[in-house]
């Protein structure tokens, strides 16, 4: 069964020059918790998660979409270029087209995020 003990407390994390405030679970904390929980070394956990990320990203770049049953759906979408005006300087510029990644969360993810703790 799922167990949610040992979650990090509410705090801020400083990464580099940027100070990110609010609830944030950093990469190290995630790795630490998983390694503690599963009884695997941190290095292997880190490598496994990196392998997941690389597999997902390669799938997204090659196929243009990624369906994760538990988490949700990733889809590469296209935004055509258009004209824009800077209202202060009245300059007209071309906003180039762009491919971006959209994420549709799964129903379970939405339910869990709205559940009372």
């Amino acid at each position, binding site marked *: 069964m799922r167990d949610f003990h040992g979650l990090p407390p509410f705090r801020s994390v400083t990464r580099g020059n940027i100070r990110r405030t609010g609830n944030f679970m950093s990469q190290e904390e995630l790795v630490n918790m998983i390694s503690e929980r599963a009884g695997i070394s941190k290095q292997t956990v880190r490598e496994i*998660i990196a392998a997941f990320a690389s597999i997902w990203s390669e799938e997204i770049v090659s196929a243009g979409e990624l369906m994760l049953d538990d988490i949700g759906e990733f889809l590469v979408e296209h935004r055509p270029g258009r004209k824009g005006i800077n209202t202060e300087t009245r300059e007209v510029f071309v906003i180039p087209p762009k491919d971006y990644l959209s994420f549709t969360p799964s129903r379970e993810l939405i339910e869990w995020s709205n559940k009372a703790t």
Partner: protein
Amino acid sequence: MNRDDLLKKCADRGVADQGSIESVSHLFYVYLLSALQKGQRVEVPNFGTFGTRVVGVKRARKMPYFETEKEFADKVNDRYRELKYLVVGKYELSSILGDEEYRGREMPHDSIVDQLGKERLVDTQRDITLEEYERNLALSQSKEKKTMPKLNLKGEGMDEDLKSHDAEEGSSPRPMLREVKESRGPSPVIQAGVAILLLGLITYGLNHFGIIHLWGDKPTKAKTTEPLAEPEPYVPPSTSTEPAQPPAGDASQTPPVTQTPTPGTPSGAGTKSSTPSIREMPKEPPTGTSKIDLPISGSGPYTVQVSSWNTRGKAEGEVAKLTRAGLAAFVTEAEVAGETKYRVRVGRYSTEKDAAAAATQLSSILENGIWVARNSQ
């Protein structure tokens, strides 16, 4: 992608054994859910960040989102990665009123084509082939563009001359060519106002010179035969043989021996007003004549002059009317400024006081007669 596919692919890479990969994937999912429930964000290296944000107003709820990491987003946007914001032109003020005019290159995205080549712009999302795109481009270029009036707004080709000119003149701004509408006359409101003024002036003039009658006194024909109102302060008595000298005590009041009511007198006994009344008087004598107590006929140096005429016939006509009214009227001749005047006079009085009293009574009667005569018509 199924969970099994993911595990198989990860095992193929030889990162770790299958059991640890399974447990890590399960724990990753569990911690992700718990973190989102707590409102925390979860970062996955080289991939992105999962988090929640509040969505909706009436039914506010948390919605999970995914924020791609920048390197990965660049990988996804590989086709257009080199494209940047490109300033094509600028809107500049063309008048004081705030009208703006676009100055710069033409807007379409062939600027991007120039920068990067045609293949970059082909829209794969719509499945447009390169040939189709080129055909469309050729079609759009073959269309005739609207010709604008040739105005050298930017001052191209004249730069050197103008620059030298500016350098000489100093701070004076460069004159700009512009299309100017032909100036029409004054506004219709002003035109209408001028027309109304002219109309009013014309009507006033016509009325003033008697061509039409809209207001004021109605011009009567009697005015054409109006007797000359000559101011005669001193008139000798009709009988020139008799001495006109007043007594010594009245030497200072010599002039008004004969009562000649001048037109300017406020009593209204002027010859102007009295003469037309006599002419239009009814044949029956007015009742006011009985009121005259003083003798209207007799002998004496003083008389009352009623009117004076240029011709004898008119004067005699007046006398006839007066006699018909019961007054002793007669005509005398006199020369004034080389012209003979025929004066109509009434009565003879021995003293100046009597004459004055008779004159006032006569004037009142004659004045009344005017009104009676007019009402009876």
